[in-house]
């Protein structure tokens, strides 16, 4: 059902040099008449009468479309005469209409050009990131030189929001991950009667790889995105600029506390994930392989060296640095409006997770070179 009942606009051509208009020549009444008008022709260079006595409504959309028609007719050399228009409508028709068909700005770009632009943008972003890391380093050095300037309150706040509040989700997911690893290996181990080696498998894979990686990915999704959104919103609402004019370095107030907090908290979260992951593995080992808790722990202590544990925990501060730097960097690059905040937030999460995994791969290469 149409929201408003309007008589649709119509045009008739009783004789070849006469056009009779009727109905509502308004945005809602015009329908597809626009396309019909393009096909309309008037033979010979004669006088054309445009009769508007039957027009019930006229608005600027109608005026625009009518003017386009009249201009075309005049351009073809016809003399146009208006007849029967009410004073109100003829006043509207006198509005100066400009038919500037300004070309659409979307210039089609070629694939090669797009690739080039993307490369330049990526390079520029990498440089900017490097600059940002430098700024953070300078601010950090300043803070270490003057510890009194350190902002403890935001650090504690960040420890709670990024660390303590993340305990349930990280605990649950690592517990499930431990269960999955033990469950997947149970079949293979049972075939060889090597049931007890489930402790090696779960222990090494959780402590060295999965716990730090999972924790970093969850924190990147949880806190990295929050950093980008918070700083991005502040940039859009000119809070960052206000901070600068008041004489507070935004990096000192917004970035340093986050970095310090996450560097403290991510290793702790990783340890928590270690414990819960191994616990999950233990439960599954007993249920599926008949390896009791005592046997499991006995073997676990022999199989997993302190080095393996430290390797896992040692990755965490690096991941923490990546998450905070990327999150804050994308936040500071926000410009324009709300839409940009969303885009930068997404970008921060994707890039943080990507870089965390790349860093993890590099660690693997490094440790295998060092025979650890």
């Amino acid at each position, binding site marked *: *059902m149409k*929201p*408003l009942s309007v008589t649709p606009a119509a045009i008739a051509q009783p004789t070849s040099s006469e056009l009779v208009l009727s109905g509502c020549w*308004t*945005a*809602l009444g*015009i*329908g*597809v008449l*626009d*396309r019909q008008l393009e096909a309309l022709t008037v033979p010979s260079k004669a006088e054309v009468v445009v009769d508007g006595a039957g027009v019930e409504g006229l*608005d*600027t*959309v109608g005026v*625009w*479309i009518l003017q*386009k028609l009249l201009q075309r007719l005049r351009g073809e050399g016809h003399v146009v005469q208006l007849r029967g228009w009410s004073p109100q409508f003829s*006043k*509207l028709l006198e*509005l100066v*209409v*400009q*038919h*500037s*068909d*300004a070309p*659409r*700005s979307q210039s089609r770009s070629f694939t090669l050009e797009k690739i080039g632009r993307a490369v330049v943008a990526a390079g520029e972003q990498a440089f900017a990131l490097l600059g940002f890391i430098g700024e953070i380093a300078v601010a950090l050095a300043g803070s270490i030189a003057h510890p009194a300037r350190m902002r403890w309150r935001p650090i504690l706040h960040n420890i709670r929001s990024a660390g303590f509040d993340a305990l349930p989700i990280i605990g649950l997911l690592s517990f499930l991950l431990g269960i999955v690893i033990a469950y997947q290996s149970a079949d293979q181990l049972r075939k060889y009667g090597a049931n007890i080696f489930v402790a090696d498998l779960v222990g090494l894979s959780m402590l060295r790889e999965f716990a730090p990686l999972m924790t970093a990915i969850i924190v990147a999704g949880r806190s990295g995105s929050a950093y980008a959104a918070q700083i991005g919103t502040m940039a859009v609402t000119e809070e960052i600029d206000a901070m600068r004019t008041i004489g507070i370095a935004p990096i000192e107030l917004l970035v340093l506390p986050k970095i310090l907090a996450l560097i403290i908290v991510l290793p702790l979260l990783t340890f928590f994930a270690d414990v819960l992951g191994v616990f999950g593995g233990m439960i599954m080992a007993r249920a599926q392989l008949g390896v009791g808790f005592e046997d499991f722990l006995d073997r676990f202590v022999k199989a997993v060296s302190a080095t393996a544990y430290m390797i896992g925990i040692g990755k965490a501060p690096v991941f923490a640095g990546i998450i905070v730097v990327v999150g804050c960097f994308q936040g500071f690059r926000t*410009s*324009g*409006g*709300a*839409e*940009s905040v969303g885009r930068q937030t997404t970008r921060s999460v994707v890039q943080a997770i990507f870089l965390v995994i790349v860093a993890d791969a590099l660690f693997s290469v490094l440790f295998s070179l060092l025979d650890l």
Partner: protein
Amino acid sequence: MADAETVIEISHVSTRFGEHVVHEDVDLQVRRGEIFAIVGGSGSGKSTLLREMILLQRPDSGSIRVLGVDLQSLDEVQAQGLRLRLGVMFQHGGLFGSLDVRENVGLPLREHTALDEASIDGIAAWKISLAGLAPEAGTQYPSELSGGMLKRASLARALTLDPELLFLDEPTAGLDPASAGGVDELLLNLRDTFGLTVVMITHDLDLLWQVADRVAVLGEGKVQGLGSMDELSRMAHPTIRQFFDGPRGRAAADKTSGQATEQVKE
């Protein structure tokens, strides 16, 4: 007589947010073809009243009729039909950040008519120029526009479907005097050309003196005064006096009366 036709009728409207009473028994009528202004201090419920008139919020009691339609008892189809007859310019523009100005202005046409893309672009470009913007502004995004341009682009979008009623929320707030003066002229022009009825919220005394036919002063949840600026300036109610007796109020009044005497001399 057509001039006296009432297009908005607010009767006995009360609104509260929790304990806080925003309106209490507000009555107002807006006539066709007039420029009606609502003024009042911060928190006097101007914006709430405007939101109630444009179907964004419902009053707790009382009735509002807009263009002869009772807002309390209308279904979705009627509401949709009514919305097409209203144009609203929001205080911060309300332009969509993901679309450029021309797409913003053409959006109502794209949604509600069967016109082809080229015509929509052409009409949008024309509306943009009617609102006093350069054609180049059409391809810019809202984040690239200055405050004055944003207001004009927003006005162009509000006018796209030739509304019978135009609502303006602070049309000159944040504009430089020259741009604000441009808005005065633009509004008068639009009213004379299209017979628009304009309802606006404003603090701009110059705009009120130059443009408004009638002004309602809201305060303490009620209408404290109603009339032309001349009539209001002679009223003795404290809320109204406060409004007129500040240095800015006097300057704006002097400017207008000065212009009037100049015209008489000529």
